[in-house]
């Protein structure tokens, strides 16, 4: 199996009271965008750290079960065979800066330079990545002077430059305006189409509903729902003890509590387009 796979994985951090992940089995396939959805503490971020080989190697903690990425099982060997093939983006962009790049261009070039790519290849890849994320006009700027949104785009670009086969994203677009969000997800969609395995952990249901191919809902370290995003988002299970669905679905569900009407019956409309069609 390729892509990202967790088989019966339980994990606890050195300082956590109990297991953060409890016997989790899930699979994120190549060519798809898989959405890990759950409130803070549900374990979505931990899954990403495990898949990146950063946990338990960097973070400490104990793990049982098996994690494999692109067919490579991760264990004590850790990361090295996959270096340069994983695009890892966390929710705090300013902690992802190299801190030593004089310009945005150098920041984006940081990773391929470390990996010893030939300069010509680096130049092309950096230009492509900066254009895809809309930061080409910032190439000569000092990274310290970027705004929050520009920084987040730069961070994504500095991973996109590697054209990774696996993307592990933790709330990657929180500082981006609507245009930035569209650019970013367009790029992720293109990556998936080209065969990459894209995994995104996020609570922004509205933004992700019609962009992802597979939805896995986590709660308290366990997988509670796993399947087609649209059907799951249109149902009730995702509300009962889950993180909830999109604002449109929520609107319909709340209204249905006050009045009995076939217009408000399940399956709830998930996107604006659905709603306009149903109620227009």
């Amino acid at each position, binding site marked *: 199996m390729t892509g990202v796979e967790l088989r019966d994985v339980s994990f606890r951090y050195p300082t956590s009271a109990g297991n953060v992940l409890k016997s989790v089995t899930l699979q994120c396939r190549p060519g798809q965008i898989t959405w890990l959805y759950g*409130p*803070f*503490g549900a374990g979505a971020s931990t899954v990403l750290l495990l898949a990146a080989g950063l946990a338990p190697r960097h973070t400490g903690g104990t793990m049982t079960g098996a994690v494999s990425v692109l067919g490579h099982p991760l264990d004590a060997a850790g990361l090295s065979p996959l270096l340069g093939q994983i695009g890892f983006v966390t*929710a*705090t962009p*300013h902690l992802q800066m190299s801190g030593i790049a004089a310009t945005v261009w150098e920041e984006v070039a940081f990773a391929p330079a470390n990996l010893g790519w030939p300069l010509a290849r680096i130049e092309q890849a950096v230009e492509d990545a900066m254009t895809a994320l809309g930061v080409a006009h*910032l190439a000569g700027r000092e990274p310290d*002077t*970027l*705004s*929050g*949104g*520009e920084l987040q*785009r730069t961070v994504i670009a500095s991973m996109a430059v590697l054209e990774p086969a696996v993307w592990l994203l933790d*709330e990657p677009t*929180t*500082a*981006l*305006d*609507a*245009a*930035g969000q569209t650019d970013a997800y367009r790029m992720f969609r293109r990556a998936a189409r080209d065969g990459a395995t894209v995994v995104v952990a996020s*609570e922004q249901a*509205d933004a992700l509903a019609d962009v992802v191919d597979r939805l896995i809902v986590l709660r308290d370290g366990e997988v509670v729902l796993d399947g087609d995003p649209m059907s799951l988002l249109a149902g009730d299970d995702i509300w009962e003890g889950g*993180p*909830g669905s*999109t*604002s*449109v679905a*929520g*609107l*319909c569900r*709340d*209204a249905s509590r*006050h*009045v009995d*009407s*076939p*217009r*408000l019956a399940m399956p709830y409309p998930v*996107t*604006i387009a659905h*709603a*306009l069609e149903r*109620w*227009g």
Partner: protein
Amino acid sequence: MTAVLTFVSVRFGYLRGAPPVLEDLSFQIHPGEGAALLGPNGVGKTTVARLAMAIRSPQHGAVTTVGRPTRALGPEDLADAVGYVFQHPEMQMIERTVAAELGFGPRRMGWPQERIDKRVGAVLRELGLAAVASTHPYDLPVGHRRLVALGAALMVEPSLLILDEPTAGLDREARKTVHRVVRGQREEGTAVLAVTHDTEFAVEALERGLVLDSGSLVADGPLADLLARHRATGLSLPGPALIAHRLGWPTRSLRTEDVTVALVERCRQEGPSIS
């Protein structure tokens, strides 16, 4: 009504010789108003907030905050009347308990401990965080730490609240708390200027939109109108609001609560038939 915040023909740039970030910017905010400062990434929204708080001074024009010209002042001179919440305030907690963190400002200003304790209690209750008064801020999840930062800004019962991306990265619960608190503050007469790209927050808690582009205001008016003109501003309404707008539903406001009411009404009117 005297304005709580006034910008008059403000020009500002960070680097000499480089084109200014803000050019000829003018606007006013009055008590009880909630203004969303909108615009694309990097356009200068945070800069406006920092000028309003006297963290920087404009090169031309004037900024007057709570009646005080900012030219000769620093943020510490406005702290008794203005609450400012930075981006990523979770990185700036410096005390060992939430209660101490909230009390930091008032202690600097010489409040008696009794008054501090009383106000801390009230603020924590308003935020729904009374249970974590003795918790270390870094033990709280990011969303709660943000709320603590908001609470710290509320301690002085400010006339003006300046918020920089207060909802970025927060979960649904925390966002709803922010909406509720900001609305509540406005009802008490506090003016609010919020830098944000979260149109849901803008619609739920504010009513005026200031759109910044290429250094000046390209639009200044009721939020509903601005956001409805999607193409013009590059911004879009949140889901429920957009639906109500497109389908022409009569609503009291574009807040989800009011859109729900309108939807319920329409279904009631239709009766049991599926038209």
